[in-house]
């Protein structure tokens, strides 16, 4: 159940991995689409917190090209619907996330990513 909204917040937290550790890259991702309730207010409030390029990159990796490369100025309904779909309705069920810096692999099984670190990786 990794949605892109959480993926967009997630950086690698292994020891010493402090730069270039975001966004995590998807590997062999199997996705599932599930309907979620549309809430325009929430999206408007959340938009400033989103790293836009990372979100578009992650969506493209998962084969969704509905979002424009540049964040649009106008927040019309059509755009919010697209954003809602990408952020909250695309679930990654299987696969892995790999840190672009230290190459740590966080496997995803059954929709739950395993974020546990080995003893020597704890900061």
């Amino acid at each position, binding site marked *: 159940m990794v949605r892109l*909204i*959480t993926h*967009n917040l997630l950086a690698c*937290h292994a020891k010493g991995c402090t730069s270039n550790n975001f966004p995590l890259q998807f590997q062999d991702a199997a996705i599932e689409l599930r309907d979620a309730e549309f809430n325009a207010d929430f999206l408007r409030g959340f938009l400033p917190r989103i790293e836009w390029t990372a979100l578009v990159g992650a969506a493209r990796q998962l084969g969704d090209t509905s979002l424009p490369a540049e964040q649009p100025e106008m927040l019309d309904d059509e755009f919010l619907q697209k954003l809602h779909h990408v952020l909250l309705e695309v679930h990654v069920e299987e696969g892995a996330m790999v840190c672009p810096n230290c190459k740590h692999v966080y496997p995803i099984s059954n929709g739950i990513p395993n974020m546990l*670190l080995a003893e020597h990786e704890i900061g």
Partner: protein
Amino acid sequence: MSRPELVAPPEIYYGDTEAKKYTNNSRIQQIQADMTYRALELLNLPEGEPAFLLDIGCGSGLSGEILDEEGYLWVGVDVAPSMLEVALEREVEGDLFLQDIGQGFGFRPGSFDGAISISVLQWLLNAETSHPTSSPPHRLTRFFTTLHAALKNPSRAVLQFYPTSDDQIQLITSIAQKAGFGGGIVVDYPNSKKARKVFLCLFVGGGGGQQQLPKGLEGEENEEAEGRALFEKRRERLRAKEKSGKRKSLKDKDWILKKKELYRKRGKEGVPLDSKYTGRKRKAVF
């Protein structure tokens, strides 16, 4: 019963059977629900705005279900895979992570509008190995610093936990303060043994004393009556009846006669004869 956190680490203690038991126990459900509502109250989120929350130690999603009902979006982390499996079965709405909070979070700064945690922090107070990263102060420091980073400014984190001593409270609050949090401990029903609940209420930002520590609930746990187990009243009534002496004696005259008849039929020797004295109640003579 000894405290579960002293028995085994959480990911082992909450195995498949314990996870199911925990989730299906109606009393635990009730207590968890009450504490979640109280934690939300203490979070004091602005009304009408859907917030994005972090549920630390979400377990099987008992608290997450309430967050769903209240219309919040949330992310849950837990270290016990069996509990997360139960959460998947229960189809909670939040995103779940298998994560050891003592290792810290990897969330970007300012990700969440708030954080709640129900009955979790006490699990961080035991060292599982002798490795330096496994000592409680190290794990607490890692937890609080990364949590502080992940919360937006201003916001709150409310963490309910079961401390065994004042030293533990002292340790936790001092480390939280070092991590940059304001706030402190809120105790509900401080004079009750059963209903007493300890909440660590932490603030991020909000300078100038705008954020004031809320008061704990006072009074004589009048909530108790609602919070107790089903059928407890009936059990109490029965017990009162027994005490008042109206209980029927099991071994009355009929019962004795029946038994004697049975023994005679079986040919047992030395069965006393029946008489007017059989099964007679003796006078209380001293």
